[in-house]
């Protein structure tokens, strides 16, 4: 086995991995991405510049990107997590509170991650052991966590006294923004884990058929807690990154971000029925969403159109997926 193979997938050759990924993600998304880039490149002279790529696109996709990794895991495992935006806000508030009461950056950040992990695990317990539909469970959690955030802060923005957050958030390393490195690091970590550990194997198995997985002896509810926990933890990290970008924490952080997160995951080819999807697909889906947002800004299109465009891509992606799997209904 060559080093290259080892890097991407311990299960097969590089070519096979590429073919399989392309097959899973589908040529539609890549084609759409190329067309999208072509359009914005030809319409805006500022689009294809180093600055726009690292800042406008790169920096802009970190927060939804980190949440999208967790969402991908949950969706492949047959679940759904609507609470990521709220959890990120609560995590940012946690980090800000810890930091303002004297905790060093790393401790504040870990505290935020722990909060996300905890909320995510509760989601997992409710959907797994409690057998509540994940859509309902996490919709409830969305509201609960957002409400607590507002309660704790009195609905006001909290300025973080320590400069470390903002400094780390706005600075670059090797000309790439630090927070973009965080996103790439998350993709690398989970891209490494999923093909190599039971974590990834059971994620697909439970999403494919939780009954079959249970009969095979997989402790499916325990794993649901793990998957939702990871999603919550990543949402926590996304909250920390949000406060690093702004130097503050507010209870309304990332309101409505679920839309972009879920759209990126679905565009990337993950099946709402579970069992199917690729982290690489989510990466491309994320690129598509962010280039769309960025391109519309560059063209000075009113921001309301962003929402309309993202919502349309979500529906288009699901339609395309349905059509690719079964053909359109003629009934």
């Amino acid at each position, binding site marked *: 086995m060559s080093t290259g193979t080892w890097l991407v997938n311990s299960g097969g050759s590089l070519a096979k991995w590429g073919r399989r990924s392309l097959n899973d993600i589908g040529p539609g998304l890549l084609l759409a991405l190329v067309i999208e880039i072509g359009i914005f490149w030809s319409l805006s002279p500022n689009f294809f510049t180093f600055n726009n790529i690292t800042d406008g696109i790169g920096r802009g996709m970190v927060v939804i990107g980190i949440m999208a990794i967790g969402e991908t895991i949950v969706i492949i495992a047959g679940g759904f997590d609507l609470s990521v935006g709220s959890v990120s806000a609560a995590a940012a508030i946690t980090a800000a509170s810890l930091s303002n009461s004297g905790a060093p950056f790393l401790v504040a950040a870990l505290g935020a991650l722990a909060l996300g992990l905890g909320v995510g695990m509760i989601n997992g317990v409710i959907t797994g052991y409690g057998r509540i539909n994940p859509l309902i469970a996490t919709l409830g959690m969305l509201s609960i966590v957002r409400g607590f955030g507002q309660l704790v802060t009195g609905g006001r923005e909290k300025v973080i006294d320590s400069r470390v957050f903002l400094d780390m958030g706005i600075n670059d390393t090797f000309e790439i923004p630090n927070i973009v490195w965080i996103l790439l690091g998350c993709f690398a970590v989970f891209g490494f884990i999923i093909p190599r550990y039971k974590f990834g194997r059971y994620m697909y198995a439970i999403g494919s058929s939780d009954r*079959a997985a249970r009969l095979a002896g997989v402790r499916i509810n325990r794993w649901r807690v793990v998957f939702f926990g990871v999603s919550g933890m990543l949402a926590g990290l996304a909250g920390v990154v949000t406060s690093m970008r702004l130097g503050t924490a507010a209870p309304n952080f990332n309101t409505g971000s679920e839309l972009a997160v879920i759209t990126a995951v679905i565009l990337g080819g993950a099946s709402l029925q579970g*069992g199917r999807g690729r982290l690489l697909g989510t990466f491309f889906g994320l690129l598509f969403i962010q280039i769309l947002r960025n391109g519309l800004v560059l063209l000075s299109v009113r921001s309301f159109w962003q929402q309309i465009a993202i919502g349309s891509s979500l529906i288009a992606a699901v339609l395309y997926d349905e059509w690719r799997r079964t053909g359109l209904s003629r009934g």
Partner: protein
Amino acid sequence: MILEIADVKKSFGAVEVLKGVSLSVDSAKCYGLVGDNGAGKSTMLKILSGVHRPDAGEMRLEDQVVEFQAEIDARLAGIEMIFQDLALCDDLDATANIFLGRERRRGSARWFSFLDHKRMRSESLEVLASLGTVMPVDRRVQTLSGGERQLVAVARALEFEPKVLLMDEPTAALSVDKVGVLLGLIERLKERGVAIILVSHRFTDLIQVCDTIGVLVHGKIVDEFAVSGQSVDDLTTRMVRHMSGIGLDEPA
């Protein structure tokens, strides 16, 4: 006797599905269980495979009393079950399905050892070869034929060398020529020393591979007899006598 069940009872709510079932099966033998729909055949298998817990009665495996809290306990004790719908994960490939829940891993670090894809792949090819078949083990089982999927389910049960194999209507979803293959497979499993409990609607299948047949009616075994030395007609008559609702020519 490798597996003995004594006076097992099971109720779901007010309905008593099993009213004290006793049966036993020896290594390298096949016990056939017939009965009407709702007689309790599937419930019996689910108790043996750890899906359900009995309300009363005793199960002995190799003279040890066993109690299963979950499916995995039965499998670890050496009782494998092939479900009627096969219970495969359609989005996983054949190898992943065969090893699901018992993945081979490299090294022994509990949390950190990698899945051993290479070993699982070669072992799954091996176990399928021992069943006399070659198939693409890297493809999603969704894309395999019904017969191939059946073989994946059998291979999964065999990979861990079970003492007892439970089969629920294994021929129900197969075409006629594949039924012959599967029955041949059961014969080969018996030669390997595996004890088999076979639930089937198809009298001809049962007569062909079983050593003993038990007729389950309303949660009780009302008749039990050896297959050898009796004519097909006699055996069939004996099975039909206790049952209503299914006949010889009804499709399985």
